[in-house]
């Protein structure tokens, strides 16, 4: 039937690009932190040289992340309201998140100190305490989306897992770039086995990410009108299809698996940088395609 909307009031998107940037920075931070604990907590000796640089990168990114969140607030000077115990909302993922975001950098800094003084036993204990913090500090952002029932694009139980695996992916890709640079400019060379294991981890997590994505597509396509609309919208969004999926996932996957490119340092660089960009686009599309489906 012919139908025309005469007038309606859509409200503007409340968030700016700082929000996907924030997810991106916490994701990178959590990913590199978990990589740093592989040798200190889980005892995989091969990753030993990565422990300190990974932890320091993770801490530096953690300084950027809350800054992005505060910049996005309409009332930046009131950010401390989230840390007033009386205002704590136990139903809100953001309430838990702001406490985690305060506790995690502190724990991270103490952890870095003990790696620096080479106290392996204390490092191990601190790592064990901080790993769950690192996981939760990123998973809560997934929950913040998954708990929004209004928007079908966000309201999915897969969301926290998807956020975590892509965080790990971007963390490993960043560490790969750092390791390649370190290897190039330092006298003592890193173990080539390190690059192989980093590469295999990236391939594995890329496959898991592609699996999440396929699950999203399938469930949304037979979901409510809203869900169907969001996946239809997403598949027509060039940034999502060519940016996130092709350039951010499929091309790096081919580069990392194909024998001719996987042994070359240059292609490893390219693949890692593509993954780092693709994970940012994933955050961006999760946030803003959610707003593309009108609610009024």
């Amino acid at each position, binding site marked *: *039937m*012919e*139908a*025309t*909307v*005469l*007038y*309606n*009031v*859509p*409200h*503007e*998107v*409340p*968030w*700016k*690009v700082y929000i996907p940037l924030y997810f991106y920075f916490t994701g990178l931070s959590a990913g590199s932190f978990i990589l740093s604990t592989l040798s200190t907590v889980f005892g995989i000796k091969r990753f030993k040289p990565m422990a300190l640089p990974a932890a320091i990168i993770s801490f530096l990114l953690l300084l950027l992340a809350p800054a992005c*969140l505060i910049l*996005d*607030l*309409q*009332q930046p000077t*009131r*950010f401390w*309201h*989230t840390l*007033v115990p009386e*205002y*704590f*909302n136990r*139903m*809100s*993922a*953001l*309430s838990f*998140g*702001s406490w985690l975001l305060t506790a995690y950098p502190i724990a991270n800094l103490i952890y870095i100190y003990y790696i620096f003084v080479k106290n392996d036993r204390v490092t191990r204990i601190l790592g064990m305490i901080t790993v769950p913090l690192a996981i939760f500090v990123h998973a809560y952002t997934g929950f*913040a989306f998954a*708990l*929004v*029932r*209004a*928007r079908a694009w966000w309201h999915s139980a897969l969301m926290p897992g998807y956020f975590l695996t892509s965080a790990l992916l971007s963390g490993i890709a960043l560490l790969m770039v750092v390791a390649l640079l370190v290897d190039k400019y330092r006298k003592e060379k890193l173990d080539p086995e390190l690059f192989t294991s980093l590469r295999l981890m990236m391939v594995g997590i890329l496959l898991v990410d592609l699996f999440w994505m396929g699950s999203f597509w399938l469930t949304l396509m037979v979901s409510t*009108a*809203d869900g169907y*609309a969001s996946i*239809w*919208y997403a598949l*027509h969004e060039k940034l999502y299809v060519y940016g996130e999926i092709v350039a951010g996932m499929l091309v790096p996957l081919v580069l990392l698996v194909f024998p001719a490119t996987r042994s070359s340092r240059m292609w490893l660089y390219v693949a890692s940088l593509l993954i780092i960009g693709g994970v940012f686009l994933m955050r961006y599309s999760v946030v*803003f395609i*959610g*707003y*593309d*489906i*009108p*609610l*009024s």
Partner: protein
Amino acid sequence: MSKLVSPDGGTVPQEPSPTEETKSIDSGAPRPKRWGMLVDQRRCIGCHSCTVACKSENNVPLGYWRSWIKGLQKGVFPHVGTFFLRRLCNHCDVPPCVQVCPVQATVRREEDGVVVMYYGKCIGCGMCIAACPYDARFFNPIRRTADKCDFCVARIDQGLEPACVSACLTGALVFGDIDDPSSEISKKMASVGTEVIKPELGTKPKVFYIQADRDLMGRIKFSNDFNDEIMEYHKHIPSPDASYWKKGR
């Protein structure tokens, strides 16, 4: 009240006894109210008086609306129709905005079920705007916090009706206590079929509609060209500057 709506003669005289009981309870502790609104779309003529009254009562900045009317035209001549839907905060009993607020700046008042904002607490994170399934919230550019319809809370606390209800020309808006069986809204709701927007989300809205059109209540407009419709959504935004609502990017 129209003859169609309420068989006054039959029901009203029988009701005083339960009302008296509730009043006797009242004398001990005040019975909690549940303010609700009934929007009779059969009576709505789309005059926008409620929108104007809301803006002047609550001093809503230019370009922003706490409540508004959505209009839709359907059909091909000579079989045509114009439909309206009054949109406002639905004052859910299970409000998603209250659930996500990190600082308890928006709460559902226990004494009357109205979802109110505490502007001094609000940090402006925008999570409630993202979580509202009715798009009833927005950032007030002057106050720089989230803002929304609050049933004119200052007026209803003084025993007045919300400004939109007072302004309505045709009596299409009925405001009252939906827990009190003798209130006008309860009587009207008992005698005619009502619906709410997006009941499947389980938010239990307290704004009820009579004969609201399906195409207006939905998130997206349903039609045979469903796919094209989604792609062309932005053309349906009837604003002179159709991109302004995406300012956030």
